[in-house]
């Protein structure tokens, strides 16, 4: 077989590595600053995953649809946090 066979797709591997790196860096920096609110961590994770998905414009449509779905679920979680915070303030 003249063509080398590899594991996975390079563009996907790079995406996962970048995302994992961003999450790890965010966690370390926030922990170093003594951040004790979980919703801050979650909000930053949401922003990072949405931004990275936006930057990877050349992903195939199926991958993009799957990642957009993950983004919608994360955003729904974020909205849940916002609603809880609003309710804390109001009641």
């Amino acid at each position, binding site marked *: 077989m*003249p063509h080398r066979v*590899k594991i996975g797709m390079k563009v996907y591997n790079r995406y*996962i590595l970048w995302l994992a790196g961003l999450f790890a860096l965010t966690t370390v920096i926030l922990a170093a600053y003594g951040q004790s609110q979980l919703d801050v*961590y*979650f909000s930053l994770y949401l922003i990072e995953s949405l931004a990275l998905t936006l930057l990877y414009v050349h992903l*195939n449509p199926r991958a993009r649809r799957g990642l957009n779905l*993950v983004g919608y679920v994360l955003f729904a979680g974020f909205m849940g946090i916002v609603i809880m915070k609003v309710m804390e303030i109001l009641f």
Partner: protein
Amino acid sequence: MRIRNVYTSLGLGLVGAGLGLTPIFYLLLRSVPLTALGISMLILGAVCFALGRACPRIPPEASALLLETGLENMAALVEELGLRSKAIYLPSVLTNGRPQALIPLHSNPSLPEINKALPQRLIVKYGPNPEDIGLLVTTPGSATLGMLEAKPGATSSELEAALTSVLAGVLDLADGVSINRSEGGVGIVVSHPRLEYKNMQLYQNLGSPLASIVASITAEALNQPLIVEREEHKQGECRIELRLV
């Protein structure tokens, strides 16, 4: 449940670890950073699942087998007919369907002018002279146009985006593409191509599969026939020169 690929396995592992560790970190250890880490594992696991579902269903080994078989059949046909002329990549408007390549049966210093759609046959007459006969073949590039969401535009940036989308995003055959337009031609540099170049007669006629994909998409974007003038493979990049006919 059969695990289809490495991304699905990774996703399962990360989600499992996240689901198991997050409650422990939150309830037992009462550590917010570690709980956040557990949540990040869940998010990464979901991302891996999403990417696993988008992976090609045909394994890379099978794809390589199909490509090899198709190229060998084409090479046998080209050698048997003794074809020496370079293929002319035609946009879909000239082939009544998808972009194809025309290999003239006779070498001719002056390239033919094709201004009307050719019939959908293997052996076609493309001009008024008796020797204006050629093979109209489907190339690896012909099928890639269907991988784009829309017909690529004619500007350099649109063409570059289309080629990068196909080669790096969909097919994972390269890391990136850059375009350099010149008078009567287009220079394309493909960085870190992952298809090997073989020194065979078919590649002299049609160009390598990579050049074929680039030429087909470029012909469609510019709506003009073109040929693969030159192809140069060096460490880490492939330079393809296309000449408009």
